[in-house]
Structures are given as C-alpha cells and as structure tokens.
C-alpha cells in the first residue's frame, strides 16, 4: 500500500521537513485571511473612492485635511447610538460637496441638528454598528430596522418633538388626522408625556336619532357615507343590505324622543331662497359648513358637517329646532346658539330644507322592522364597536376595542402578516393597512376610509413616530408641544360664551380654535364702546379674510355682560391702559407719525388708513383704529407685536420709543368719521358664496 506512490500527498507530506514547510505555508495563509478581509472591506473601498474623488477638486487640500481614515464612529450612550455610517459616508459634513450626486459621498442636507450629537440611525434607522452596505441598510436576520424611506423621515422628528414643527408639515398633518378622523376612538394612543391622544371629530349621539332623521337615510348612509357627503369622516363598514337594514332598525327602535326637539315654530318655513341664501351668508355659516356648488367644488369650511344634501337627511321640524338652539339636541355642539327670531329660523331652515338630492334615497325601500332584525341590529352595533365613537343609549362604550398604537412604530415585522406582493417592511404594512384594512382579512372590523395617498403617507409618518425610542426617551431630550388647556370662563359670561361657542373659533388662555384671533388679552387691546358695538354688529376688520365673525343677534344685556367680562378679565400685565391717552396728541406728533407710517415703515403696504390712496390688504383696516384700540396697546404692539400675540404676521420692527409714540399718535387720530362707510361698502369683501375651496 505504501509502495504505491499516491503522488500528491506523498510529495507534500512525504517527510517531516516537507510536512513542516507545507503546514507553515497553510498556517501563514490562514493568518492572512483576517487582514485581507479587512483590507478588501467595503468601507475601505469607499474611502479610497472618496480620496480619488476629492483629488481633482479645487479644495482638495482642505478636504484631505478633514479626512481621517479607518472606521469612524458616533457613540452616544444616552441614546444607545453606535453609528459607523460615517466610515463610508465620508463627506457628510463637507460644506463644499453639495454638487456631488454620487453616494456615499454627498454632503448631508442642512438640518437643525449636529450630526455628532445625534448620529444617523436616530433619524434614518438602519443598523448603525454595521460596516457593510447590506447590513447597515437592509433588514437582516439579526436586525429588523432597515433604512427608513425618505418620505417618512419626519416621523423621526416626532420621536422627540411632541408638538407641531414648522418644518414637518407631513408629521403635523398625520397627527391631526389621527385625532380628526377619529382613529383614536378605537385605537388607544398613549403619548409619551403620559396623556392619551383625544379625538377631535365629535361624532353625534345616536340616542335620539329618530327625532333627527329617517331609517331610510340611516340605511343609505351606512351603505355609503361618502355618497351622502364626500367630505364625511364616517368610514364605510361595507355592510351587507341585511346588516344595514338591521342596524338602522335598531337605531330607530332604540331612539327616545327629546323634549323640544320637534317644536316647530309657528311661522311657516319661508320659501324665499334669496332671503335664505343671504341669511346663510350673513351668519357666516360657510365659515364652518361646506356646500358643493354646481361645478362640484366645495364652498366653505370643514369644521361642521357638509350641508349639500342636508334636506334629504334631517326632518324639517328637527332642523327648525336645531337652527333655533342646537344646544337642546346636543349640549356640547361646537355650533353657536345664534338667537335667531322666529322669522329667521323659518327662513334659514327653509333654505337648508331645500338642499336635497332625490337620488340618494330613491332606491331605499325598507319594510317594517321585525323584533329579530332589531335584536340582530343591536348585536351588530356591539360587534362593530359603533359606541366607540357614537353615544348610543343602552350600549356601553367598548374599551380597548382595537389594538393600541402607542408603540406601533417599533412593531417587529415577525409579528406582522403581509399581503402577497407587499414589501416586508413596517412602513409598507402600516400604509397598506390604512389604505385597505379588509384586504388583510375579510373578517376584520376596521372599516374602509377614503384617504388620499398623501393622507396615508402622513398618517403612516405619525404612526411610525410612536415607537420604543419616543416612549423611553430621557425626559431631558424630549421637546414638549403646547398642550390645550381646559380653560373655562367663569360665571354668567362664561355660560354665555359657551352657549355662543366662542371657543370653536377663538382661543383664550390656551383653549379653543384657531380660526379667529386669540382673545386672551382682548381687554387690554380694544376700547369698550367699540367692543360692544362689534358684538352687536360685527363689521369687517380684515378685508382679505373669508371667515368672519358672525352676527349672533345678542340682546343689549348679553352684550354688556360679555363686554364687561372681556374688558375686566382678559388683561395683560404688559400693557397699562392708562399710561397713554385715547386722544389729545399734538399735531406735530401726529404729522411725524404719518411720515413714519408712509415712509420709513411703509405700513400702507399691508394696511389702509386713507381709503382713497392706500390699498394694503393684509392687516386690519385702520380707518377707525383710533376708536377701536387702546393707545397703550398700539404703543406696545409697535415695539413688539409677537410679545402681545405670538405668531402674528406683523413684523417686529424693534421701534424706538419715539417712533412708536409718534405712530401711536397718528393711529389714535384715525377715528373714522365720514370715511367709515366707504370702507365697508368698498366691495373689497370677497363673497363667500363665490369662493370655492381649492
């Protein structure tokens, strides 16, 4: 056996010297594997590429000086960040590399954060410690988080920034949608500050729905909410005909009458459409409610429900009762109690009653409901969680009806079931689920929403921002947002303000809407006589706005009550009303102020003092400002408008006391007089009826 020279092995290991030599070579070669791997590593390849690239640039020396070879790392123990991305992304901080398109050498675009303090993966996700492209960017067996697609990048801002930021419109929109579309009725969202996200859509109570509408309408609405109103936030539950029939049967059978709900006024509903349209316009109903016009555009706001087909929906007697005082049917409604007289109620209700669509209910024929159908309807109402959003007598609001979303942005992909053909990433899953929830399983209860692609991206962005990091962030790093207070005005005036729904539009002490000016310091700002007159008969202050203060038909005693309260309570300590007089300024002061107004500060670009010459159309008209505002307020405003009303568009000119005093004198001399009527009738007012949204 040994005689047969098995030549190859024999040659190598024939005698001990040879064997030693060969083993040494193998040993040396294997020793070289690690250095070789290191030498041929991806990051070294990219660093060589970078050096080749900068060699031909004019600022090569500077770039060369900034360059450090080897693995680079940003280590932030507090945030759990170990990011080696800069080993390949070498030029991230080089200001001169903006013209480089090839990655990984581009300069990082300008952001408000320093890369050394934040690292990369906090915003971009991915595996920071990895040193190969595939491991750093993609999800691997050991690492779930791939690089976040650019369109969701704002979600990363939302991990620390709890409130809206000017530079993150998509995140802000997504967060608003979560509240506004009522997602959080069913899905609990605990915010990192310990509070729970609240819905802002205010779905109506269904306990007295038979007073308001017919079973046929409920049926048609359930089948296709957007068929009734394209702007409706009610989702489509894709109910079968039978299920819609039974739910409508239950809701009507379950409804109890509410006293005062069908108290029809004695006057016959007026059939004068012109009078109705003008009362609708004067009352600025369009500030909150939209109506689809003949060309299909929505005209009006989205605070209240769309009224295009309201006559098909509500019963005439309910409509009259609602217009008379909406608070009888819904004590918490955001709609003001307008104090219309009987004739006005009849006119407006008649006008709205005629907004019908005969097609909507034409194919709905329901037989009398049987007890079985009603019982089945009740079961369906419980099953679908209708009471999560709507108050329904006899049905308890379900708790934790849908999965909690507080940490959805860190949900492991191994726990997700993807649709065929879908990319296996969390963002794709979230977006897909919002787009078409029932595609994931026909038995799911989540209804179909009518979001645009852009809204889906925004919602996904907001959801991805709620993750482990946002929930476990050291408090020192979190940037809290402004939270709404639950401020309530006191006493009789407070009751009146709630009845008039002032807070639907105005904000006071951090509570309320943002459609109209913040009134927190209104008492320091205006003169009492002007305020009383304005409440009685609101005129146009800002000609370019299409949303205006409506006339609420207040009595004299109500006006006095409100005026007294506002003048006494809503005062800022920074304005001493008595420090400057309302009149009696010297002619020289007034003239100096006039020169500053038209010259140095060119205020006429935005404001009108003389209706014959000035055209400025952005700020309030100032023809009557001397009888509207207090002199001390104007003086302080000139010096720093944002200190009195944060966020106001008026630029802070940092005026000297002399300039501010002269301008105050000039403005206080503008008391209106004969010019007044010409402003109001100047035709500058864009007619809300003609103004189409979008």
């Amino acid at each position, binding site marked *: 056996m040994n005689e047969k020279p098995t030549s190859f092995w024999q040659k190598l290991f024939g005698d001990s010297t040879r064997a030693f030599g060969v083993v040494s070579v193998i040993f040396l070669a294997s020793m070289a594997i690690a250095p070789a791997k290191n030498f041929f590593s991806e990051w070294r390849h990219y660093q060589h590429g970078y050096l080749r690239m900068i060699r031909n640039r004019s600022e090569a020396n500077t770039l060369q000086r900034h360059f450090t070879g080897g693995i680079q790392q940003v280590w932030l123990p507090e945030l759990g960040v170990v990011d080696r991305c800069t080993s390949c992304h070498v030029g991230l901080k080089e200001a001169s590399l903006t013209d480089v398109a090839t990655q990984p050498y581009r300069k990082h675009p300008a952001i408000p954060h320093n890369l050394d303090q934040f690292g990369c993966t906090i915003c971009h996700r991915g595996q920071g410690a990895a040193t190969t492209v595939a491991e750093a960017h993609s999800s691997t067996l050991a690492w779930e988080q791939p690089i976040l697609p650019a369109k969701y990048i704002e979600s990363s801002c939302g991990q620390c920034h709890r409130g809206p930021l000017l*530079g993150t419109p998509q995140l802000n929109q997504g967060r608003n949608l979560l509240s506004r579309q009522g997602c959080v009725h069913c899905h609990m969202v605990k915010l990192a500050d310990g509070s729970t996200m609240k819905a802002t859509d205010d779905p109506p109570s269904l306990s007295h729905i038979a007073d308001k509408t017919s079973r046929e309408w409920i049926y048609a609405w359930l089948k296709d909410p957007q068929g009734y109103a394209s702007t409706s936030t009610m989702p489509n539950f894709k109910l079968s005909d039978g299920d819609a029939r039974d739910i409508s049967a239950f809701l009507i059978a379950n409804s109890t009458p509410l006293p005062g709900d069908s108290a029809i006024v004695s006057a016959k509903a007026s059939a004068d459409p012109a009078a109705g349209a003008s009362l609708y316009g004067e009352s600025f109903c369009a500030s909150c409610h939209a109506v689809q016009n003949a060309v299909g555009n929505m005209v009006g706001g989205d605070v209240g429900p769309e009224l295009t087909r309201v006559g098909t929906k509500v019963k005439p007697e309910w409509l009259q009762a609602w217009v008379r005082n909406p608070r009888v049917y819904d004590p918490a409604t955001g709609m003001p109690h307008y104090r219309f007289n009987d004739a006005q109620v009849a006119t407006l209700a008649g006008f709205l009653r005629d907004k019908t669509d005969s097609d909507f209910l034409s194919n709905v024929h329901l037989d009398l409901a049987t007890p079985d159908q009603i019982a089945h309807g009740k079961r369906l109402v419980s099953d679908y969680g209708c009471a999560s959003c709507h108050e329904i007598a006899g049905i308890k609001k379900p708790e934790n009806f849908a999965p909690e979303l507080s940490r959805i942005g860190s949900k492991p992909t191994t726990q997700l079931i993807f649709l065929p053909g879908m990319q296996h990433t969390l963002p794709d899953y979230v977006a897909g689920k919002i787009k078409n929830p029932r595609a994931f399983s026909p038995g799911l209860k989540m209804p179909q929403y009518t979001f645009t692609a852009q809204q889906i991206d925004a919602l996904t962005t907001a959801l991805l921002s709620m993750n482990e990091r946002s929930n476990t962030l050291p408090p020192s790093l979190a940037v809290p947002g402004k939270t709404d207070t639950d401020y309530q005005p006191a006493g009789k005036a407070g009751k009146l303000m709630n009845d008039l729904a002032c807070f639907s539009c105005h904000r006071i002490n951090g509570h309320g809407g943002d459609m109209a000016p913040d009134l927190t310091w209104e008492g320091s700002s205006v003169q009492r006589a002007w305020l009383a007159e304005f409440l009685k008969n609101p005129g146009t202050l800002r000609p370019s706005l299409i949303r205006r203060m409506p006339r609420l038909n207040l009595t004299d005693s109500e006006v006095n009550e409100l005026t007294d309260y506002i003048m006494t309570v809503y005062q800022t300590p920074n304005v001493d009303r008595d420090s400057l007089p309302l009149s009696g300024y010297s002619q020289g002061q007034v003239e100096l102020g006039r020169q500053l107004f038209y010259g140095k500060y060119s205020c006429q670009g935005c404001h009108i003092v003389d209706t014959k010459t000035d055209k400025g159309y952005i700020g309030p008209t100032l023809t009557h400002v001397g009888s509207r505002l207090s002199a001390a307020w104007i003086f302080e405003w000139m010096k720093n408008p944002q200190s009195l009303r944060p966020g106001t568009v008026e630029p802070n000119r940092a005026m000297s006391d002399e300039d501010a005093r002269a301008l105050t004198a000039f403005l206080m001399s503008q008391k209106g007089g004969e010019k007044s009527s010409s402003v109001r009738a100047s035709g500058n007012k864009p007619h809300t009826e003609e103004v189409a949204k979008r």
Partner: protein
Amino acid sequence: MKAQVTLLLGFALLGTTGCSHKDESAALKPTAFGSAIVESSGGKQLAQTGSLLPQSVVVQVNNDQGTADPGALVEFAAAPGVNLDPASALTDSSGQATTNVSLGGMAGRYEIAASTLDKSHKRVELKLEEIALGYQQTLGRRLNDQYCDRCHNSESTAERVSNYDNLEVKPHPFSEGDTLNKISDADLAAIITNGGPALQKSALMPAWGNTLSKSDVQALVAYIRAVSDPPSRNSGLSYIDTGH
C-alpha cells in the same frame, strides 16, 4: 447530486421567467401612434423629498392634425429613486396618459421624461421638471406661506387674496430666477433681515430680522433658490434618467 443540479436549473429557469414578467410595458399594445407629446398638467410641482407630487402628471399625445390621439403608448422615465405609477400607459379617449410621481430622496430637480413612438417608430419625447424640497426648503416654504406669499405671489386663491396688485412697487415672485439669481445669498438674506432699504430697495419690504431667526432666513433663501426658474446655481442638483 443529479437531483440537486436539476433543482438548481429549475430555480434558474424560474428566476428568468419571473424577471421577464416584471416588464409591464410588454403587456400594453399601442393601437395608435402620435406625432407629438405635450404637457396637460403636473409640471413644476413641489413636494418633499421622497413624497408623492400633490397632482398627477398628465400628458397628451397628438397626431399630425394636432388633435388628441387615443391608444398611444406613453412611457415615463426618471432618475433612479423616482417612483412612477404607472411607468407606462396607453392614452385614454381624450388622448391623455396619467402617472403619479413620487420624487427621490434627495432635494433638487427631477426630470420626468414622457415619450411615445410615432408612425415611423421614432421616439418623441417631452421633458417635465419637478422640484423636491429637503428639510430646509420645506421649512422655507412654510415660512413663505406664512409671511411672504401674500405679497410675492400675484395669484389669488379662495383662501388667500393676493396683495400684489395693491403694492406700488411690485415685489419679485420667487420663481423669477432671471432677477433673483443675480442677487447673492448674502444679499437676499440681508434684504429679508433688514428690509428693502438695506439694499436701496423699497421700504414696502419690511425688515424681518426681529421676527425670524437666522436659520429661518437661511431656510427662506434655500426655498427661493429651490423654486427659481430658470434654476439658480444654488437650486440643488438635477436628477435625470440615465437608464435609457
């Protein structure tokens, strides 16, 4: 061993057939051939990086007579990173083809090429430009909406009545690249910060230096550069399709 080889072969085959299915345009058979392709709508839009353009891009194919040509195949192309949905389409009854565009992850200009074949199978092409805004430009855009747009944009919308016509000295719309590109970044920032008189311009342009922060002003300059037409030197990179 043999079984393994056949298995491997089988996978390879599967792989190749799978790939050929990817090409959607193969399924679309044009029934008409136009002679020109024109923009209907959707050019020069702004969107954040990586995001969907607010409006679809719509192009129209016309025939020799200049009338719309239904049934022509339009292929859309753009730089890698841009998502076109769909990437090719047949023109509808009014001769139009529509695609939804998501821009790439880098700020800058993206060229969308729409092309169709004419009767002699020559490619007729239309190029549209879209603008992707990074963080800084997006911030600038919001500041523009809040503070600048009412005067600098002459067009009125339902929600925003323009003040442009009311001004004695007309402000420059920010797209007016011919004028604005000649002003340096520093000078633009100076005008915004200190007002028109800082550079011997109208006092109707107020000073914003006490209202806006330095980084706000820089963001506004970045936005003005991003939207200028023709593009400024500082408009950012242009991304064009290099695939074909």
